[in-house]
């Protein structure tokens, strides 16, 4: 199948993106962000999961939680370019919300073929807050690194162990948990209130999301909780991986573009030595370099999205590239956005730190630039 020249981003896709720009522009404005998560800055305080619950309800009504769900499972079945565009808008506002976690989970579940898949997708579409719990004790980036052990017990399954670095786990009503049995990795739907499940919020640097550690102490689940059967889990996760990488990369592209625009604006208005900062090439040229890096990352994100939809054999290659470039872009843009703001950029009151921390977080999620390049080389050179 030939890839569409426009990455599949046509009029319909643009409409969704533009409505996201409008909605999140309003409900995720910088003033609201400051108010929501900028409150008590004390770095020793207990972690919280903060998001705008009424806005989330509206998001569900807008249908964004059904966006990535195929039509046959009751969703809207928009393409991956739309999902990427949505993530880019979320990142561009560092918008705290269950949306990214919902999309990531959806992108995994939709690759499963178990009989319970459609029901779960239906619940997600209707706004159930879900999160992906696939990372094992050591925070390894390989997608099959889960360390939770699964035992069969009559008709039910019993899960025990830890799942770490669960993104926005503090918001979730249900977790999609990867667990390991002799037959291999399976995927299981675990309600947040399941008996034996303990959800602990990590104290993290990034305030625009939360992160949780799950401890499962003999959590017993009915057979209906099996989303991917043991032995199918690895394949499902591997198939979904390019989409996961693409969503996180898109988030970084959005946040990096915010950093570019905000730093440019500051360079136009702030004067030192009788010139606006942007007059000085030590300011202007790094800002231009931010733009050059962002554009490559953005183009690779949509190339990956398009490959996922239209040329799956290229999906991992493009998604690794997108995440590699976006991770390095996010690191670079974060670095320069603080430095070029000078003293004010080092303060809590200046908004650059929200995006700085979100980007640094995403840089490492599912693997940083160097990791992605090492995986890419396995594809390119074996």
């Amino acid at each position, binding site marked *: 199948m030939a890839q569409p020249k426009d990455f599949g981003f046509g009029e319909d896709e643009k409409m969704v993106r533009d409505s996201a720009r409008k909605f999140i522009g309003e409900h995720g404005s910088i003033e609201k962000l400051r108010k929501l998560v900028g409150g008590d800055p004390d770095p020793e305080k207990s972690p919280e999961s903060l998001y705008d619950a009424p806005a989330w309800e509206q998001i569900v009504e807008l249908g964004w939680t059904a966006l990535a769900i195929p039509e046959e499972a009751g969703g809207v079945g928009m393409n991956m370019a739309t999902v990427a565009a949505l993530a880019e808008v979320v990142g561009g506002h560092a918008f705290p919300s269950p949306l990214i976690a919902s999309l990531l989970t959806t992108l995994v579940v939709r690759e499963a073929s178990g009989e319970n898949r459609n029901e779960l997708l239906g619940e997600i579409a209707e706004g159930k807050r879900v999160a992906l719990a696939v990372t094992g004790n050591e925070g390894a980036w390989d997608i099959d690194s889960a360390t939770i052990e699964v035992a069969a017990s009559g008709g039910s399954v019993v899960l025990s162990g830890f799942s770490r670095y669960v993104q926005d786990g503090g918001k979730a009503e249900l977790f999609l948990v990867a667990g390991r049995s002799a037959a291999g990795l399976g995927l299981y739907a675990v309600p947040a209130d399941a008996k034996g499940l303990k959800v602990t919020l990590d104290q993290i640097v990034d305030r625009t999301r939360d992160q949780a550690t799950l401890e499962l102490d003999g959590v017993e689940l009915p057979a209906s909780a099996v989303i991917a059967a043991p032995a199918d889990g690895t394949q499902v996760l591997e198939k979904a991986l390019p989409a996961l990488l693409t969503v996180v990369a898109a988030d970084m592209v959005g946040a990096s573009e915010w950093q570019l625009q905000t730093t440019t604006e500051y360079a136009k208005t702030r004067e030192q030595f009788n010139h606006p900062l942007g007059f000085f090439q030590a300011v202007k040229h790094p800002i231009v370099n931010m733009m050059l890096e962002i554009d490559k990352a953005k183009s690779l994100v949509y190339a990956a999205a398009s490959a996922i939809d239209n040329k799956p054999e290229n999906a991992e290659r493009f998604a690794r590239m997108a995440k590699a*470039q976006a991770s390095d872009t996010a690191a670079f843009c974060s670095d320069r956005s603080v430095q070029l703001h000078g003293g004010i950029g080092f303060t809590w009151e200046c908004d650059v730190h929200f995006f700085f921390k979100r980007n640094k977080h995403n840089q490492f999620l599912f693997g940083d630039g160097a990791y992605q390049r090492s995986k890419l080389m396995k594809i390119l050179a074996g």
Partner: protein
Amino acid sequence: MSQAAKKDTPEQAEYRAYCRKWIEENRPEEPDFRLPLQAIEVMDEGVKEYLQTWQKKAYDGGLIGVDYPTEYGGGGKSGMQTIANQELAAGDVPYFINVIGLGMCAPTIFHHASEELKRRFIPQILSGEMIWCQGFSEPGAGSDLASCNTSVVKKGDKWIVNGHKVWTSLAHYAGWMIALVRTSNHDKYKGLSFFVLPVQDTKGVTIRPLIKITGETGFNEVIFEDLEVPDSYRLDDVGKGWTVAMTTLTHERGAGTLVGPNTGMSARGATRTQRLLELAKKCRRNGKPAIDDPFIRDRIALVAVWEEGLAQNQRRAKVPGLTDDPMRIPLQGKVSFTELAQLAATVALEIEGQASSLYIADPMAPDSGTWPLTFLNSYGNTIAAGTSEVQRNILGERVLGMAKSK
């Protein structure tokens, strides 16, 4: 059917089919020499003639100058050059030698010259029968083009030209030059005018090859000593030289109104990434295959990501929904592609390790020693036609709207 072809109007489709057939039937025979990478590197009379013959054939076939009016030797089919270009690229044929003439001189003459000059010069440029060059840079005017100091002084009804142009590609084959010159010292910009100047075997004109750091020639300096030219060689008004030069530069950056034929780097061949992968497979680094070295792997992957990013940039630039500013990607092209090429050559030397010391005449040199050559030549591209530093000023000022740095 290609993606581009899908959107053709019937007229475009017909012309496209014509081009494709013409190329099939008229493809030049494979030369028995290696073509230089770019037209401006051609130094050999035989190569020059081969390419000149090919350009004339393509011109006669109606594949060059399609957008120009018929009275100037063009095809009179506005918007059609793009079609021809796509088919020429797809057809994997050689480039055209009159690269400066087609890309810069013809559009400038078209927009600013007298009717007489247009009729006289545009056809010979399009056909390639006369090779043209461009005289902007001077020893004292590099990045700062407007400090150009070649003096043109009125003497009766003639103009007397004195000055020194440098980095003049193809001057060694050129009959004519478009030149930015100074007619007054009172104002930096308004003191500039624009002429076409004869340069071949002409009294008062000396052309000397400049030698590059590679040891190759490939461009020239052109010295004018009391060259006399008539007023009819002037383009636009006296004092309007900077305006005319902007037309030239806009077309050089590929952003002009007249689409030139495909004359730049040949689109053929492997990507840089593929070439580096091949190189790393055959070279040994510290006695082991370079392709197994983790440092080398990371570096090649970096090139791969960058190269694909730029390729996808070109794709995205054509999707309005994903480009909020239409000039943002096109204006990045020069700095991005030249710096990518430099990085790729840098990585190639890292792959070769000790063997990167070997030059093109050494029988043991990997890839015939072309990587050190490519590396050295890459600086020509990060410097010429607006250094990377000037490009970053342009991007910071025109795209992002920051204050001018100069």
